[in-house]
C-alpha cells in the first residue's frame, strides 16, 4: 500500500509539536517562547483532529491559542519593563534539570512503548475516513448528563459505570462556577492598584527605586 496520509500528517504534527515544545524550553526570549508555545499547541490541536476529536481541537485552538496565549502575552507585555535577558539559568541547574527531565522522559517512553502490551492487540483502524465522525453533539449531551456513546447496556454492565454516573452534568456545573469564580478572583488580584506615592517623574526624582515601585496601597 502507499503512503498513509493519516500517518503522514500525524508525523508532521508530532514533529511540529515536539520541536516547538523543545524550542520553548531552550529559548530565552519570553515572547519567542510564547510564539513557539502557540505553534506547539496548534500542532497539538492538529493531533486532536487526527485523533478524531475535532471539538476538542477547536476548543484547544480557541481557548489555548486564542485565549490563554493572549493572556500570556499580556503578562509578558505588562511585565515587559525590566530585563528579561538576565534571567538566565546557570549551567549547573541546566544539568540537574536535564538529568531529571531525561530520566522522566525515559520512564515515560518506556511506559508508552509498553502500551501495546496492556492495550488490546495494537491493530488500529487502518484507513481512517476523511470525514471525521461528529463528536460535538455527543459531547454536548454528555455534558448535560446523557451518554449516547454508552447506551449499550452490555457495555454498561461490562464496564462498571452505573447509568447516572456516566454523565458529566455536575462536573460541568462545578467547572463553570469555578471558572467564574477564578476569573473574578483574577480580575481582583490584577486590578490596578493606586500607588501610595505618585510615580517618579523625569530626572528630579530617582527613577523607579524599588521602595516606591513596591509600595502598593
Amino acid at each position, binding site marked *: 500500500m502507499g503512503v498513509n496520509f493519516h*500517518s503522514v500528517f500525524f508525523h508532521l504534527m508530532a514533529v511540529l509539536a515536539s520541536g516547538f515544545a523543545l524550542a520553548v524550553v531552550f529559548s530565552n526570549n519570553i515572547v519567542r517562547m510564547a510564539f513557539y508555545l502557540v505553534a506547539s499547541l496548534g500542532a497539538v490541536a492538529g493531533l486532536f483532529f487526527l485523533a478524531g476529536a475535532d471539538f476538542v481541537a477547536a476548543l484547544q485552538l480557541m481557548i489555548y491559542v486564542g485565549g490563554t496565549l493572549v493572556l500570556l502575552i499580556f503578562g509578558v507585555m505588562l511585565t515587559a519593563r525590566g530585563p528579561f535577558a538576565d*534571567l538566565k539559568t546557570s549551567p549547573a541547574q541546566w544539568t540537574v534539570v536535564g538529568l531529571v527531565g531525561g530520566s522522566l522522559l525515559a520512564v515515560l*517512553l518506556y511506559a508508552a512503548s509498553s502500551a501495546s502490551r496492556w492495550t488490546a492487540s495494537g491493530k488500529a483502524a487502518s484507513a481512517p475516513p476523511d470525514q471525521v465522525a461528529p463528536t460535538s453533539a455527543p459531547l454536548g449531551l454528555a455534558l448535560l448528563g446523557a451518554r449516547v456513546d454508552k447506551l449499550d447496556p452490555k457495555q454498561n454492565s461490562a464496564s462498571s459505570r452505573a447509568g447516572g454516573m456516566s454523565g458529566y452534568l455536575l462536573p460541568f456545573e462545578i467547572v463553570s462556577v469555578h471558572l467564574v469564580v477564578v476569573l473574578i478572583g483574577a480580575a481582583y488580584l490584577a486590578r490596578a492598584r493606586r500607588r501610595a506615592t505618585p510615580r517618579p517623574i523625569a530626572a528630579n526624582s530617582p527613577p523607579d527605586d524599588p521602595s516606591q515601585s513596591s509600595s502598593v496601597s
Partner: protein
Amino acid sequence: MNPLAEPVHLTHYLVVGAVLFVCGVTCMAAKRNAIGVLMGIELVLNGANLNFVAFGSPYLQSTSPASIGLDGQLMALFVIVLAAAEAAMALAIALCFYNAHATIDVDQADELKR
C-alpha cells in the same frame, strides 16, 4: 520499514504526549521567568490532554475495552477549561508579584523562607 505507511498506533500519541510533558516539566524547572514557568504548565497539561484524547480516540483503540470512549475528550475539555482558569489566576499572581517586587524572577519569591 516506512513509518509513513504503517497506521498510527496509540504508542505514537503517548510518545508525543510524553515529550510534551517532559518539555513542560523541564520548562517549569529551568525557567526563572514566572511566565516561562506558566508556559511549562501549559505544556504539561497539553501532554496530559494528548494522552486522554488518544486513549479515547475512535481511530486508535475504539474496539478494545481499554478505550474510554468520549470520556477522554470530556476529560480533555475539563482540563482545557481548568487550564484557562489556572492561566488567568497565575497571570494575576504574576502581576501582583511584579507590582510588589519589580521583577518576575520566581527565585525572588521566597519571603516565606526568610
